[in-house]
């Protein structure tokens, strides 16, 4: 209850920021709309401003902004000539596909390999894995994507260079998504690997591990029957808190692979000063982050009985 109130306050504050930031910045949204060769009289200009709601005093604009949000109306994009909800709606599924599959794969890969690495004693294989993941972790996401694009799409020609699909069949979509998902997966896996590894190393010396051995378990059976669940607790919170971060990673991946997703939309809207779209995306991402956190709050007690209430 207290938690959900906090989320509501957070949403309110971020939404409010979302309203003011673009308006506080230099640049006129009309400048890009009209192009370089135009003759326009003041009256049409005023009409246009009125149409975009830019003529009202700020408080009125602010109230309108809120009433629109509450009606799930994100306004109208004069760059994309469509409702913002449509513009975002058309791209959101692709981004969600990219982000969703990457989180899934990245979390599996990262936690599993990280758990193995943290569990087994130092060995060359273990060390190489850690160094590899550490390098990926330390690489800017665009650099990783570019390396993959260059090697696998261009040099080897195994994958297409751009877009989310060509023909639209699922195998075709798969081929288009393989490298982007790979980039983001590796990037996320590296993060979860390091955290899981550290977490398992901490858990490894706990008393319950000794007791599990005393019961007759040994080796990886202890890891999977006892340590894994405990060690992966921080990952759950991390994935939720990371949601914004993951989206930004997706942004760079989308730009490199020319995918029509939310990330590229931010970039395009940014250069076009498209306030409504920028605000819309920021809002959607914030809502998703909050939802992810609330979901984590809901899921966490299921795997960690210690925080369960009223039992």
């Amino acid at each position, binding site marked *: 209850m207290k938690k959900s109130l906090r989320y509501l306050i957070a949403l309110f504050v971020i939404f409010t920021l979302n309203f003011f930031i673009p308006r506080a*910045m*230099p*640049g*006129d*949204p009309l*400048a*890009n709309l*009209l*192009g*370089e*060769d*135009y*003759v*326009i*009289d003041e009256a*049409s*200009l005023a*009409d*246009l401003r009125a*149409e975009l709601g830019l003529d009202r005093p700020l408080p009125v604009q602010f109230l309108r902004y809120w009433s629109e949000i509450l009606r799930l109306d994100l306004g*109208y994009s*004069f*760059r*994309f*000539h*469509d409702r913002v909800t449509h513009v975002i709606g*058309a791209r959101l599924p*692709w981004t969600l596909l990219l982000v969703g599959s990457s989180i899934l794969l990245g979390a599996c890969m990262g936690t599993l390999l990280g758990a193995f690495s943290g569990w087994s004693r130092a060995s060359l294989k273990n*060390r*190489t894995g850690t*160094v590899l993941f*550490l*390098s990926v972790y330390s690489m800017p996401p665009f650099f990783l994507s570019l*390396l993959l694009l260059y*090697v696998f*799409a*261009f*040099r*080897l*020609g*195994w*994958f*297409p*260079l*751009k*877009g*989310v*699909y*060509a*023909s*639209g069949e699922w195998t075709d979509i798969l*081929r288009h998504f393989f490298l982007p998902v790979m980039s983001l997966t590796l990037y996320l896996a590296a993060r979860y690997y390091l955290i899981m590894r550290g977490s398992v190393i901490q858990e490894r010396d706990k008393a319950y591990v000794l007791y599990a051995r005393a019961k007759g378990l040994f080796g990886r059976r202890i890891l999977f029957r006892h340590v894994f669940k405990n060690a992966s607790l921080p990952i759950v919170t991390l994935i939720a808190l990371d949601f914004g971060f993951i989206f930004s990673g997706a942004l760079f991946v989308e*730009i*490199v692979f*020319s995918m*029509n997703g939310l990330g590229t939309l931010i970039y*395009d809207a940014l*250069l*076009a*000063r498209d306030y409504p779209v920028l605000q819309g995306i920021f809002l959607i991402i914030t809502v998703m982050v909050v939802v992810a956190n609330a979901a984590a709050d809901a899921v966490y007690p299921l795997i960690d009985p210690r925080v369960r209430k009223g039992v």
Partner: protein
Amino acid sequence: MGRRLSGLAVNLSLLALFLMLHPLSGSSPNSNPPDERASPQDPVLLRIGTTDLVQSANILLDANLSLFAHVSNPTLMKMNQEIEPEGQLVEAIEASADLKTWTLTLKDDLFWSDGLPVTSADVRFTLTYLRDKFPAAGWIKNTVSEISIVDRHTVVIRINRPYGRLDFEFTTYPLLPQHVWETIENPLRHTNPGRIIGCGPFIIDRTDLNRGVVAMVRNPHWKGPESQIDVVEIHLYKNRDVLALALEREDIDIFYEYASSYPYVNLDRLRGSGRFEFLEQLNLGLYFLGFNLKKPPMSDPKFRRAVALALDHEEILRLILLDNGRKPQLGFIPPSMPAFKPTRECALDRKEAARMLDEAGCRDRNRDGLRELGGGKDLRLTLLVDPHKPFNARLSELVEEYLRAVGLRVSIKAVEGSSWVSLKDRYSYDLVISRTSPWGMLMHASWATGYFDARRTGEGVLHTVDDPKFLALCDDLLAETDPGRFRSLAHRVQDYYAENLPAVALLWNKIITPYNQDFYGWELDPLYGLFNIDTLLSVRRKQP
């Protein structure tokens, strides 16, 4: 020891991977392009790659889609090779002696792609529709007093003041079918990702932004010369590197960007592969260094001349263009424009530049190597630039350095496009780097007057010159119809630029467009380059 270096080793092995793959470059890009490849019995497909990103399926307002739509919804007039307006959809255009009544006669073999004929009613509809609903066409409201239909093919336009260049205006707006667009209440809020009715040889079939393709098919009711191409696909790339890779890999057949060349540095590779041919034209537009004429010391012509002398145009040509261009002249306008008048070539002379700066009152009084203004105040110049446009970032770096060499302190203010426009409109800069577009060179009274005339506004327009002499020149040009006098006025504009230097051209560049050898028969349009109606009608694919 080995362990300590293992982090380094992994990264080195990445480098090694890169190196190993590098020698493969000759063969692998050509192997097995996985995207759809046409076999002989398939329809002939022409794939055009561009970074001119279409962002919405709106042929009027999306700057890039409207560019491609000029083959589906052509303009009434077009610019011919001499860069003069010429009928495209109209057969004849006549102006009355007082230049206030214009009569347009449409060609009679034009049909919309749904089979209906193109009529004068469509012309009237288009003009009134744009007048009422399209903000940038505001001039129609102020200028056109009556549009009347004479017969199916003839329409008469009356305007409220003599205007000799009305035909120029008809080279910009696409013709819209009345029976489709009259139901579209607000073009600002309209998108159509499906088939768009047009009357050109090709029509837009689908605008699929997720696939990143605008697909065009032949207009079944086109009565003109038949195209050998069945489908034109415009592939949209979000970055130029990937586009270049796609071209090499033959995912696409030609590279096309409005008023932009294929990156010069990638040309050698394409030449080496032997799979490509190139079309070259000198750009109508150019990159320039503009001055804020409202502020001293930029308001002093001596200062501006000194700046021009301080620039090393030869090095700019070599470094920025890799010699794919020409050394500009002080007359600003490149020779690709009609009525070009040779003026003095820009030449580096630091000594003379320093002398003229001294003369203009910018001296280095405290001997710190940098010049001060008359009152002893440090002279700090702000160079406004949008680094997202090609060349701009490096150009500003070089200009900053050249000016420092003659004792002028310049700080680069890099901002993205929209802020650039607002700062430019508020005159909050001293120097500015920008470019002119081919169309921009022709707007207003042509010869780049549109960029300088203080009475105008617009995205790239500096509107810095309010010299009555220049404004009178513009007005004379706008009202002139006699070709001979027109030409001499154009020369006077170039002389004005050379003398007064409202801006200095930084580079005159070639536009080089590579295309795959599988196709031949390309036509170059001075404004639109390789992508134009004539090309689509003449280009054909080699038989395998």
